[in-house]
């Protein structure tokens, strides 16, 4: 068998095992493309792998298809006219099933998944580049996978068997209190720390044996902004672009582009030692993006930032995912951040993942709203518990009170207050709040997330609070 036949045989064997996109309408009707790595569909020949330049309704970079495990995901890349799956407009990265119909502009694509699909997203089985797909490469998908990852420090298990899978183009929120193992996990996934046991692959590469390839594929902004206070932002950019191997002619342009994007152009000539915390964070993020990484790790990126800086950083991260199809692994101890930013959340405690799903699903698991009551007299604790038990299941309280979870759909405090009043029970504080990720954490661990107890419930708009002056009769909220 000659070599050309051999190559042909190899492709023939592999292609049917890969997810296929069958173009059933539009410019490429009749074409079938295997998806072995991320495939960007759009109008711009310089930015898309599959070019639909005859369709005015298709954006420059319209949507991205990526292999995920044994399946396929699709993500809209911020297109003007949207991407639709079975008639529903996409809002975030979505897993596709066999037979799903994806529409963008006048183009319709049918998804074909084989039973013998390649389960390993490693580059061992690269897809043949689709015809007419400039820039189509055999890059593995932008996934993050960990299997039973363990890190021990002198007998202490900081990370205890973490397994997770992050889809391409997804923002994965890794939520947990201080010391839960978030940063240690990130350090292992970014090759900065060797795992004690377990395996992990980032962007398709094994962190233990393919560290160099992992580092090329990722951008990392660690917990503390890793900057030299004696250098200015230009000097940081110059160093980072050079060390990342950017050609000399592109370094200045790329640095200027990123500094402008994070709003530091005016301050770029000042030494970083004089920057505010927010400015340092923004520069840190810009430096992590110099080499156009496919997976971005952000370790508590907004800790210590003022609300304005925090929002600006969130917007930039969302833009990176939306426009560049980046996968983001975000650790945080802020409930609000995980809730707003993450497509899916993994909650970690004592080195173990205790829950993982979309924020909405996690909260839905918890059930209805919770009423938390703080008795004025500690002697009334049992009596208050008895009254609350009439309304639902008693659950752990975050504020040293008594809490009851109301049945789904019930969220009125009035009955609870009346019942307490009828028993002449005086309380100093009553709160009604919709399920939050803190409730999820509480339900899974029996503890409140560190720091969450101190948060102003009104800030996230989830709670009604009624503070009752000691000695005064109970009152119905709103009165």
């Amino acid at each position, binding site marked *: 068998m000659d070599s050309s036949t051999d190559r042909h045989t190899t492709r023939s064997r592999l292609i049917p095992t890969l997810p296929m996109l069958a173009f059933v309408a539009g410019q490429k009707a009749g074409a079938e493309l295997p998806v072995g790595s991320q495939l960007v569909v759009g109008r711009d020949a310089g930015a898309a792998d599959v070019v639909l330049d005859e369709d005015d309704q298709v954006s420059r970079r319209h949507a991205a298809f990526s292999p995920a495990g044994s399946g396929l995901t699709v993500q809209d890349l911020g297109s003007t006219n949207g991407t639709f799956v079975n008639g529903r407009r996409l809002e975030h990265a979505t897993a596709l099933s066999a037979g799903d119909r994806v529409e963008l502009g006048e183009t319709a694509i049918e998804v074909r998944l084989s039973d013998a699909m390649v389960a390993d997203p490693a580059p061992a089985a690269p897809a043949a580049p689709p015809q007419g797909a400039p820039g189509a490469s055999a890059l593995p998908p932008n996934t993050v996978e960990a299997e039973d990852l363990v890190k021990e420090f002198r007998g202490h298990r900081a990370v205890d068997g973490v397994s997770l899978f992050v889809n391409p183009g997804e923002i994965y929120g890794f939520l947990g209190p201080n010391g839960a193992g978030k940063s240690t996990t990130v350090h292992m996934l*970014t*090759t*900065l*720390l*060797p795992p004690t046991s377990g395996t992990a692959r980032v962007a398709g590469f094994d*962190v*233990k*044996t*393919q*560290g*160099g390839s992992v*580092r*090329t594929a*990722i951008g*990392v902004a*660690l*917990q*503390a*902004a*890793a*900057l*030299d206070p*004696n*250098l200015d932002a230009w*000097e940081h950019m*110059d*160093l*980072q672009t*050079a*060390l*990342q*191997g950017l050609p000399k002619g592109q370094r200045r342009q790329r640095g200027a582009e990123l500094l402008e994007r994070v709003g530091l152009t005016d301050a770029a000539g000042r*030494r970083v030692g004089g920057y505010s915390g927010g400015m340092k964070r923004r520069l840190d993020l810009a*430096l992590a993006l110099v080499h156009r990484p496919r997976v971005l790790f952000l370790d508590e990126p907004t800790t210590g930032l003022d609300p304005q800086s925090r929002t600006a950083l969130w917007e930039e991260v969302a833009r990176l995912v939306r426009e560049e199809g980046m996968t983001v692994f975000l650790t945080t101890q802020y409930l609000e951040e995980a809730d707003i930013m993450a497509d899916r959340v993994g909650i970690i405690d004592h080195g173990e993942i205790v829950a993982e799903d979309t924020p909405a699903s996690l909260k839905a698991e918890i059930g209805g709203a919770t009423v938390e009551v703080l008795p004025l007299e500690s002697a009334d604790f049992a009596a208050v518990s008895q009254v609350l038990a009439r309304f639902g299941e008693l659950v752990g309280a975050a504020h040293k009170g008594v809490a009851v979870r109301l049945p789904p759909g019930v969220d009125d405090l009035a009955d609870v207050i009346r019942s307490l009043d009828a028993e002449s029970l005086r309380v100093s504080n009553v709160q009604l709040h919709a399920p939050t990720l803190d409730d999820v954490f509480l339900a899974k661990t029996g503890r409140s997330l560190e720091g969450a107890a101190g948060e102003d419930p009104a800030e996230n708009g989830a709670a009604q609070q009624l503070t009752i002056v000691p000695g005064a009769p109970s009152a119905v909220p709103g009165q």
Partner: protein
Amino acid sequence: MSPSLGVQVGRLARRSITRTLRQPTIIVPNFVFPLFMLAVVSAGGDQVTDVKGFPTDSYITFVLGATLVQGSAGAATMAGNALGSDISTGFLSRLTLTPIRASTVVIAPLAGVALLGVAQAVVFLLVGLAAGVSVEAGVAGALALLAVVLLMVLAFGAIGLLAAVLTGSAEQVQALVALVLALLFMSSMLMPRNLIEQDWFRTIATYNPMSYLVEATRSLLITGWDVEALAVGCGLAAAAMILALAAAVASLNRSILKA
């Protein structure tokens, strides 16, 4: 794409020099303290030269050799501080996440201290010449002296880098200052070994490698071209540099996955 080795070394060396020059609070003491020590020690030491067998009539010439070693020893804390600071701020992690060699990351901080070390040596030598010191080995000897000092700067700097990699802290590297000063004072800094009267002190000075570094620099000032003294001093410095750098790079490679 990985940058060429030249780009790696060049960029990191430039950064090292830039950050060094922008920290006058670190630079100034490295110039001032050795000169202060030279002034204090040499001022009260002229009668020492009357001791039979003392190799020179000029005590300041005798002590200048130790001053040059003291100045170069400052490289240990400077390089250690620089790397320790990079470790504690996470800058080292940023560098190790780029496609460059771990050895480059570790060794690059030596560029700044090397530049500073040679500049110090030039200043010390000029001050010495102004105070009446002569270089027995001549102009070529003065240049050789700078080369010897550069080697010692690199050796002390490498020891500082190793300390930083092992402790991960700029603060703990500061402990090297006391150690270096103690070793210097327990060497033949103030008196030739054969003229040290106390046996215990002479024994310590004999086993103290610092004595041989001092004697190498001193030989060019007092004796001329003493190949043995130069070979021993430079050999010790080179060995220390190679061992310390190898240990530092190996330690860093163990702690991160530079696969």
